[in-house]
């Protein structure tokens, strides 16, 4: 069977869905297909946390992340239905020596023109009574939030369909190759037939390198980084605010200290991230480990992360865990996602490699792809995310 589309998005995770939404908005008459080998939101976006996180490490990162988080608030206003909860985030100090990290992080926010408040022990307990009583203090940043990623994918697609009735999903459609004339993309081949198209967006997360290879990109440097997660039963969260260890910042956003290609050597690390869910449970993360595409649960790492979590929220000990699982983050080796055109092939686009910030950064990423595709202004300067940097 042969059909045609103006834009084919390969990958129905949060990034593919955001691309579809933003392209549908920009091109309300275009035919847009979202293909996925499995279900929509069936892989990483269905196995991750839903942190909307503003990262103030640099002014540039702040611009990307803060713009994206603001766009999420807009998505909530326009359609909702994805358990949007602007809880803010508490960056917790574990011991008195951690307290010196709080002003450092606070200064990062203020250097970006934003604010965050340092809380002492007493103020902390007023905001979050479920925390351990001996915690010395924390930084509270109001701008962060939580969403349920898989229903956020639905919401993006449904809103996209409101703007453009020709936006369709094709779950269960595996891409087998691409056709081109010269350096111009002309078609996507799938197990169910060929789709002629002038524009293909690769948004396959950890599987992006494999799909990109089919399109002639030899080595897109994205590696799976596994995370163990656990969730408590309904009506049993020890906390109401999103929690992070203040050391999370160094741990999650610094470059990996291990070689991502040598998967046998990574013992894995963990830092507490806890998210209250609107259904009343609590999502507990997170661990990081390079071990290829293996998604079997690492009980040792799970143990370590639960142990750390109950140190901050002791009430967790008596609460039931209903499920644990593993998701694969698409780790980009230079720590920047790939969002933009692939310069060697006209009509080939990449939107992938956001590691643990894919949910958070999906809105801005989709906007950047749509803006570049249609020649309209980008919401932020896309330069440092352009895929051409690896050429």
């Amino acid at each position, binding site marked *: 069977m042969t059909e045609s589309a103006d834009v084919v998005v390969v990958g129905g995770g949060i990034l593919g869905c955001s691309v579809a939404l933003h392209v549908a908005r920009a091109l309300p008459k275009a035919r847009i297909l979202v293909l996925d080998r499995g*279900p*929509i939101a069936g892989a990483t976006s269905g196995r991750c946390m839903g942190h909307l996180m503003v990262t103030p490490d640099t002014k540039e990162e702040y611009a990307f992340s803060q713009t994206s988080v603001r766009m999420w608030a807009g998505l909530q206003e326009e359609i909702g239905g994805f358990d949007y909860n602007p809880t803010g985030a508490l960056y917790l100090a574990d011991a008195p020596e951690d307290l010196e990290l709080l002003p450092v992080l606070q200064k990062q926010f203020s250097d970006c023109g934003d604010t965050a408040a340092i809380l002492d022990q007493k103020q902390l307990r007023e905001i979050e009574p479920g925390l351990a009583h001996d915690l010395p203090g924390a930084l509270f940043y109001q701008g962060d939030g939580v969403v349920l990623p898989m229903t956020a994918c639905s919401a993006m697609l449904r809103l996209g369909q409101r703007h453009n009735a020709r936006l369709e999903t094709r779950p269960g459609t595996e891409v087998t190759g691409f056709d081109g004339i010269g350096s111009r993309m002309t078609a996507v081949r799938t197990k169910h037939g060929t789709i002629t198209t002038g524009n293909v967006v690769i948004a396959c997360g950890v599987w992006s390198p494999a799909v990109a290879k089919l399109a002639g990109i030899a080595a897109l440097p994205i590696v799976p980084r596994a995370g163990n997660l656990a969730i408590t039963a309904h009506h049993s969260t020890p906390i109401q605010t999103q929690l992070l260890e203040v050391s999370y910042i160094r741990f999650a956003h610094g470059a990996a200290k291990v070689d991502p290609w040598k998967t046998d050597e990574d013992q894995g690390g963990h830092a507490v991230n806890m998210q209250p869910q609107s259904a009343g449970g609590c999502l507990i993360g997170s661990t990081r480990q390079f071990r290829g595409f293996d998604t079997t649960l690492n009980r040792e790492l799970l143990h370590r992360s639960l142990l750390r979590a109950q140190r901050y929220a002791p009430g967790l000990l008596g609460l039931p865990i209903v499920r*644990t699982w593993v998701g694969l983050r698409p780790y980009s080796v230079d720590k920047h996602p790939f969002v933009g055109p692939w310069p060697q092939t006209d009509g080939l686009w990449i939107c992938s490699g956001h590691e643990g910030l894919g949910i958070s950064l999906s809105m801005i990423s989709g906007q950047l792809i749509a803006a570049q595709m249609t020649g309209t202004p980008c919401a932020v300067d896309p330069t440092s995310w352009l895929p051409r940097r690896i050429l």
Partner: protein
Amino acid sequence: MTRDAVIEADVGVVGAGPGGMAAALRIASSGLSVVVLDEGARPGGQIFRQLPEGFAHASPPTEPPSHGAGHELLHALTGSKVSVESHATVWDARAPRGDDLGCLWFEQGVASRALRCKAIVLAPGAMDRCVPFPGWTLPGVITAGAAQVMVRGYGIKPGSRAVVAGSGPLLLPTVTALVSAGVKVVAALESAPRRAALRALPGVLRSGARLREAFFYARQLWRSGVSLQFSRAVFAVEGDGRVQRAVIGQLDREGNPIASTAKTVDADVVCTGFGLVPSIEIGQRLGCRATWNEARGGWHIEALDFGATNVDRVFAVGEIAGIGGSEVAIAEGRAAGELVCAQLQQRGALTHVRDRSRAVRAAADAMLRAFSVPRGVYSLVKDGTIVCRCEDVNAKAVRDASALHGDSLRAIKMGCRAGMGPCQGRICAPSVQAIASRGSTRAWDEPVVQIPLKPVRTSTILDAPKV
């Protein structure tokens, strides 16, 4: 008394129902040590459930002949060397491998414990299969299994006027239990057509015990004046905050409701049972292969002769290997016990126990084939009918999710969170895909297993013995 966090036995058995008890007794009789882990307060399982310790029925509910075997097993258990750990929820498992012992991690009260063993026999039983209809979430609608637990296990009368509806051999004991508890059964509705009962006959005739059982129920029904009506179902349940009325009526050949036949009866309890679904997650966790057979309740662990699975020294007996009832569970439990002993004591296994388990299983299959859930009954579901109770997801949300995300169980779960709650889809999975696919007869997807196999406290996971 403090109990050891880690205990050891030659054999670990999961479940103290008929299959687990039969296996454990056979194993203990040959001098091997055996520990049974059971979720209940006392052994017996769902079918031979005992009253809580220290209680007795003022007037015992009428028992079918098959319960004689239950009393024998329970009696034998008390006089045996079998050690039963009650209130034990198994939440993770590892199969024995080479010289490494297998391990069953379990929560017991507030303790986190583990059982190490050379062989594992799985007899975890099954869950009621629910089919949603408008009003099925009203208080007063209970499963057939729950009705029996209330009457037999706790001496509780679930209501005064009951409608019993569903499909399969479990309806009869439900009616009998209710009647013996003094409940007026105003209607007993089998959704399968009368010819299904005739198709089930050969399976009944092949087993003397099942024939006696059938005569018992026929007599009980006749005495109580309740007659089982075929091709009928509950279309809806109504009431202000709880069950007050049931709308009942006739089904066509495909199981679709015939609206013109609907009539309303007063009732304060509605018991529904559309057969059972095997609890397979522990088998999957151990690496056992699951296979699909509608007559056996859908996905079940593939068990060969003597209950052997594709995993060395892991055995599956009774409902986990496919719904078959207590007679099958006992025969398979004995057969698995025999092979476990033979393997651990390095001798040949006696074949007559295997032949017996083959025969009763074949008879059960022949009977249960007659009672597959007719797809048409899912057309009772309205847009607003709740399908996933844990997450309050209605049928429209399920269909919308399926259209956008895909029609696999996982896709629907991602699109509307059906199956994400405490039961992890064990209750709604059969309905979700049937509703999404609007009456297609395909199998639902094999459930994905994750630890904990059942919800357990964080402290249980943290304190898990490292073995």
